[in-house]
């Protein structure tokens, strides 16, 4: 027991490592912290250095967490691990999410806020569920055709308007599950992207499954997407086939890699990304995935695997000690390959490549561009430059959404 204590190390002094440890272990909420609601199973916190973290607080495993969130004497909050405490800020669930659209749909059914971006799923279906070949860890709230809901463009626009009014986010992620068409769902998303781009100055990212043909990637860019994510999730071929039977069988690992490679030639540097879930495969395999993706100019994004009730894969999550070198590798690789890291920043549910910098033995300081990119003006500039780039690069008209292949 005392050896355990010897290898245990406090992460409170490094917000980068603290974020990882918090995401793995979760947090207990001390009584009385009246203003906190953990109804969504997690809370968003701002750690020292402005690092955003989404921390589980309701899952059973959080009861054993070292970390406690408490209110301190001046009305602020602190996280303590029994040895020390660090001040944190609590991001309250924005009010606007409790609103509803004119057609009566609660905003929270359509959107989720994750730090500086909002995730909108205009349709909640994923056809993998129809055939029982969904990803084993899936927690995306997607469902079978019968249970799935489709929200109208107007509903989605109302949500984005509310997000903008509340100044809650500058980036909109449009997320869609698997559909059988050759377009990877982009045909369905096109009117949403175009409408958002027409009415709001926001950056739009598309999180979808790779289309069968590259011209749909051109189309995705042409209709207004500023960023695209085709999430491979698992780099190891066998584990990919085992854990993601739908993705492996109906799309294939090679198509993922080819689509990402092509997208990186169409979209600006740093705007094509792919998730690799840390903890679903050995860290060495994740590192290989990082190398492969960055060679193509794609930004790997590494969410941490956390078992969810009813979705247990029989895989134990990795420890912080094992995960930290993977994030270090991520940061160094993206930096050395000159891929812009600023597009993927300020995300609460995962550690971004940029945050990997805090994990270095001798952390590097940020540059002036970085702070600029993170500012409101920087986000507006990024939006403006992205629009100009599209005007310059796109020739001809995007396809009509009637086309199929």
């Amino acid at each position, binding site marked *: 027991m005392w050896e355990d204590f010897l290898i245990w190390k406090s992460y409170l002094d490094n917000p980068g490592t603290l974020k990882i440890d918090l995401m793995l272990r979760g947090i207990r909420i001390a009584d009385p912290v009246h203003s906190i609601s953990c109804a969504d199973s997690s809370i968003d916190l701002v750690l020292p250095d402005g690092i955003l973290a989404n921390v589980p607080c309701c899952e059973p495993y959080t009861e054993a967490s070292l970390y406690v969130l408490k209110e301190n004497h001046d009305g602020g909050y602190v996280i303590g691990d029994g040895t020390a405490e660090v001040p944190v800020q609590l991001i309250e669930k924005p009010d606007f999410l409790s609103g509803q659209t004119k057609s009566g749909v609660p905003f929270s059914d359509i959107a989720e806020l994750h730090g500086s971006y909002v995730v909108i799923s205009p349709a909640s279906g994923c056809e993998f569920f129809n055939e029982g070949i969904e990803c084993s860890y899936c927690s995306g709230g997607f469902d079978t055709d019968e249970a799935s809901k489709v929200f109208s463009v107007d509903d989605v626009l109302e949500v984005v308007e509310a997000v903008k009014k509340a100044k809650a986010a500058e980036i909109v992620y449009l997320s869609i599950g698997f559909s059988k068409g050759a377009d990877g769902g982009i045909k369905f998303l096109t009117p949403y992207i175009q409408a958002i781009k027409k009415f709001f100055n926001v950056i739009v990212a598309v999180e979808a499954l790779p289309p069968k043909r590259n011209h749909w990637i051109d189309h995705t860019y042409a209709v207004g997407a500023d960023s695209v994510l085709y999430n491979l999730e698992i780099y190891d071929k066998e584990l990919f086939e085992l854990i993601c039977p739908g993705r492996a069988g109906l799309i294939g690992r090679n198509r993922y890699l080819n689509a990402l490679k092509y997208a990186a*030639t169409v979209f600006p540097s740093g705007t094509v990304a792919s998730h690799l879930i840390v903890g679903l495969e050995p860290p060495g395999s994740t590192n290989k995935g990082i190398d492969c993706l960055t060679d193509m100019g794609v930004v790997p994004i590494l969410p941490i695997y956390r078992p969810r009730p009813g979705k247990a894969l029989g895989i134990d999550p990795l420890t912080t000690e094992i995960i930290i070198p993977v994030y270090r590798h991520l940061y160094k690789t993206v930096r050395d390959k000159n891929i812009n890291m600023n597009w993927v920043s300020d995300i609460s549910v995962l550690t971004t490549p940029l945050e990997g910098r805090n994990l270095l033995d001798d952390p590097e300081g940020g540059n002036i561009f970085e702070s600029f990119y993170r500012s409101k003006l920087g986000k507006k500039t990024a939006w403006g430059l992205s629009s100009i780039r599209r005007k310059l690069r796109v020739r001809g*008209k995007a396809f009509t959404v009637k086309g199929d292949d």
Partner: protein
Amino acid sequence: MPLEIDKRPLWLVLAIRSARVLFFVSLAAAFYFALTISVPEGLTEGGRNAIAIFIVCLILWVTNAVPLAITSILAIVLVPLFGVLPSDETYSIFGNEAVFFILGAFILAGAVMHSGLSNRVALAILKRYGHAPKRMILSIFFLSAVLSFFMSEHAVAAMLFPIVFEIAKGLGLRPGKSNFGKVLFLSLAWGCVIGGVATFLGGARVPLAVGMLKEATGETINFLEYTVAVFPIVIVMLCVGTVLLLKLFPIEITDTGKANKLIAEKLQKVGKITYVEYAVGGVLFVTVLAWMTIGEHVGLAVIALAAVVALFVLKLVRWKDIEEYVNWGIILMYGGAITLGTALARSGAAEWVATQTIGRWGTGPAAVIAIFSLMTLLLTEGISNAAVIAILLPIGIGMAGKYAMDPTLITYAIAVPAGLAFSLPMSTPANAIAVSSNYITVKELVKVGVIMSFTSWVVFNLVANYYWPLIGLWGN
């Protein structure tokens, strides 16, 4: 245009995309520079400004950076703005007789086409004469030429193209492979080009040139006089064309039975000749006759517009039917070109430019004619024939002054070759239509077109030097 993502380096894309802005900024800078240089000897300030405006318009006409008509509008903005001519004079020149003649000719040609008369004549002639492959080629060639005597060669090409295309298809000719197919479309294009220079009606360029001549010098050329002067060129070129069409591409078919059947069927579908066709034909006949006989006294535009009024009084056409045949862009373009040409001439700029440029090479009237006709032939292959006239004629008229030549000679030397574009698809719609059939390639068109262009230059100069003195046009 299909969707395409330009993946070249962003700086290169930016440079290419901003080329247009850079172009206009440079043009504005060059214009400003030209306006600020000290006035050269022998030139007035107005003359210098006219030259600066001319250079801007020349660049815009040649590059087609904005539509030709818009360049002309720019000219009528700049001419009064920079004091070359007073505003009221500028706009009165814009409303030149030639502009109204062109408007009348467009409406008249529109009425002929809309009534179906031209289509009937074309089918009837093909049915009557096109019984064997060679006869069919010559029928199309001469039919295109003769129709272009009376209406715009562009309209003739557009009207005959579907008929010729159906003949080619009906005979099972393979695009790009069949020699008969190539010759069919060449005969259409060449017929239109050659016939188009025969009268004032083949294209609006001759009225444009005559309008510019009249505004600059007070001299004019009448309908009959022009046709008499040019007809030998047309005859010789039709003969040369006949020989080349029959020799250059050996015809591989021996029978045109299927095509004849097709033409007969089409003619049958057209039905009996209608009152409207008779009446439109009658109006056209009277109009041409009037142009030839009383045109000089009454004015060509007056006759053309009277014919237009007659068409509407007799209810032969409706305005809605005619609107699509009137190319308002060309009308604006011509008005502006005439205005600019007049501004150059009246300010003395044209003569000054002529003396400083072509004047150095010209050794006498024959050389001047040869140089201008050659320059026109070369330019007309690349840019619109109206633009060529707008660019070269003011200088040519200035040149005539230097050699004490009759300026009408220079007008012929530019107006006629401006229509003789045989080599490139962009030079005239007739060529473009022929190439669009896919039966003849651009390469083939250029190969045979160059022979025709060179021949036409030689023929033009021979006619100018040996025939025109006979009819009193050239008194040397």
